[in-house]
């Protein structure tokens, strides 16, 4: 059940919040736990084993935390066993199929078949569970003594399937005591609707443009269409994920939680270094806190620093998926960040226009590697983006982009606009005018529901993670 579906908005949300607001404060965690378990159950009815895996994961983490607290001598083995369990399961579900396929292709006659469907949200709840265990091990958070509270932390439906990746420290206080103010709840409703609009009204149509290009086949498209397509994908990915993160934050506020911000206008960045401080911020924080700093962070020599960042970016790459393109994507980002760190950043800081042009070029190119999983197709696509790489000038003269541009230009324009800070500044300015806010939100909600009703909705891109 995705947030941008009629089932969620029309059935789950009204029933859940009616119950949640009716029950007394001391029962709210229990209500949220039940609601979240129902939410995840609906999403796993085709693979009930995923549900068992999820519950086992919650129970295991909780008792490992308790055991670490009670038996300090055994802290390390308990932590290691927890990490091995989590990453073992994640590896099995996410990467075994890919590994088996590679073994088959390397060894003649080998026919390993691994067909495991990735459980919804496993990449997110694995990271949350592991962060909790490490925090308890380090003593940076007190162990949670209530299974109910810990269960709410992991299962909370607002962030369960697609983040933001919330650490226990972030919500610990609210798990024990939180306030529900009308103003915060209404603010949460507004954020949820705005996120829904970004997802349904902006990301989905742009996704269709990319899908159209994908369906035609990369070897048949012109250079301009290739650029239009990958720009559309870049906007789709951003508004899809940003919209979903906003919906999560909005839902969190409606329940009295302040979930962390996940995006901060990444497309206005002037370097890749800055971009990754603004994009999927909770993932970046996770890798910094639990991989980069334990490796020594930046308090090491240059060689070790380069190595540490290499490890972080390769892990970031493969976290996003099992495929050579994700390895290449992680490697490319690492290489770009290293070039920026040791050479380019000082120039990018000085030259504003150049730095924006640099990012306008680099962002779609990096997303092309991310989007196209088949390496051969990726190669073909790059020859379309840059026709002087073997394709020849004929792909420059195609006019296949005219028809899709006629349909999608308003969405591309809106994508460009909403990538800047301008609309958000305008919203901020009109925030006090309640009539304007209500009218805008009602229009967004109405438009989104209409599109969902008409079946213009797409599954959330980040579900495969």
């Amino acid at each position, binding site marked *: 059940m995705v947030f941008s579906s009629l089932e969620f908005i029309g059935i789950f949300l009204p029933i859940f919040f009616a119950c949640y607001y009716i029950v007394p404060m001391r029962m709210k965690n229990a209500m949220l*736990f039940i609601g979240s378990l129902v939410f995840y159950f609906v999403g796993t009815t085709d693979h009930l084993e995923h549900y068992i895996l999820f519950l086992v994961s919650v129970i295991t983490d909780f008792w490992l935390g308790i055991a670490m607290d009670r038996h300090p001598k055994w802290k390390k083995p308990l932590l290691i066993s927890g990490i091995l369990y989590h990453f073992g399961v994640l590896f099995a579900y996410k990467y075994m199929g890919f590994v088996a396929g590679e073994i088959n292709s390397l060894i003649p006659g080998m026919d390993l078949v691994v067909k495991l469907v990735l459980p919804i949200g496993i990449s997110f709840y694995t990271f949350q569970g592991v962060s909790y265990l490490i925090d308890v091990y380090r003593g940076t958070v007190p162990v949670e003594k209530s299974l109910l509270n810990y269960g709410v932390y992991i299962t909370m439906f607002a962030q369960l399937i697609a983040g933001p990746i919330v650490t226990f420290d972030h919500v610990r206080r609210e798990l024990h005591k939180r306030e529900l103010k009308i103003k915060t709840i209404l603010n949460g409703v507004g954020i949820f609707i705005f996120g829904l609009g970004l997802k349904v009204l902006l990301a989905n149509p742009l996704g269709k443009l990319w899908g159209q290009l994908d*369906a*035609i086949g990369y070897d048949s498209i012109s250079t301009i269409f290739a650029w239009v397509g990958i720009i559309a994908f870049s906007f789709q990915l951003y508004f899809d994920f940003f919209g979903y993160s906003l919906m999560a934050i909005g839902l969190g506020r409606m329940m009295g939680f302040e979930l962390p911000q996940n995006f901060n206008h990444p497309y206005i960045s002037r370097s890749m270094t800055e971009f990754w401080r603004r994009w999927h911020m909770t993932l970046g924080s996770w890798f910094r806190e639990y991989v980069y700093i334990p490796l020594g962070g930046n308090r090491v020599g240059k060689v070790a620093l380069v190595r540490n960042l290499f490890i972080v970016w390769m892990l970031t790459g493969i976290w996003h998926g099992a495929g050579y393109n994700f390895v290449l994507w992680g490697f490319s980002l690492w290489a770009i960040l290293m070039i920026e760190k040791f050479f380019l950043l000082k120039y990018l800081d000085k030259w504003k226009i150049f730095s924006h042009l640099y990012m306008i070029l680099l962002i779609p190119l990096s997303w092309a590697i991310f989007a196209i999983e088949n390496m051969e197709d990726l190669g073909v696509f790059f020859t379309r983006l840059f026709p002087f790489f073997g394709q020849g000038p004929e792909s420059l003269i195609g006019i296949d982009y005219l028809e899709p541009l006629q349909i999608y230009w308003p969405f591309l324009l809106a994508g460009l606009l909403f990538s800047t800070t301008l609309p958000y500044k305008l919203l901020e300015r009109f925030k006090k005018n309640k009539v304007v806010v209500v009218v805008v939100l009602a229009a967004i909600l109405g438009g989104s529901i209409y599109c969902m009703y008409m079946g213009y909705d797409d599954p959330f891109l980040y579900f495969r993670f």
Partner: protein
Amino acid sequence: MKKQNTITMWILIGIIALIVIFILATGRTSLAPKPTPNGGGNTQQESEKDDYDVSEDTEDTEEIESTETTESEEESNQPSKPAGVTASMDTALFIGDSRTVGIQTYTKELTATADFFAAVSTTITGVVNYNDKIDVEGVGNVTISELLSQKKYDKIYIMLGINEASDYPSNIARNTQKLLDLIQEKQPGSVIFIVANLYVSETYQSSRPAFSTANMQAINNAQAALANNQDIFYLDPNFMFVDENGNLSMDYSGDGCHLQNKSCDKLVEWIISETKRILGL
């Protein structure tokens, strides 16, 4: 706290136990109902594909047998050339959905002079029961009935069905029959080709059970049974585009559902050659 943890723990263990009992008792890890024998594809799961057996259903069995007869007859009884029918695309009409729009867009060298009553998401039920209007180049925004009243065609290709794949194949066949009746009423003497719905890729159908290859075959078989091999023929191009598992191969499709540009050419070339072969043109 201890009491609360115990209660929570028992509730979670209880849920796990219930699910384990369900899995052990039914041998299934999915709550989705098993596919109905007559092809209610919207409930069918990929993992159950092998269990799917359309032959359990009497109606569909007849349809399959009929299809086999159709194919064998096609080989042995070459019909004579129908009067007035030519090989030219000038007098051809394609009725279809987004896949046909792909043909219209990317096979201009082959089909520039043909007419296309095709739009994204088109269904047979929409065309015959709801009088959906489609913008036909050079004609305007018309229903199929209006189009068939305005222009004369000698070859009409029907390429529909996938957008209503969650419906029963027998219902789809019933609506296809209505479309055939309408065409025969408005365009006497024309030859109609029902082109089989192309399958979708394994990945594509994994999240859309209605599009499973088994269900698409059931729909195709139901439509194939409507062919009479006199003026209604059935063409199945799937053999050209399937992978080793019988699903649409990603070698021919970008998104697992629609054919790529070059594959559209291949499909149309095959349709044209089959048309000539069948009609002896």
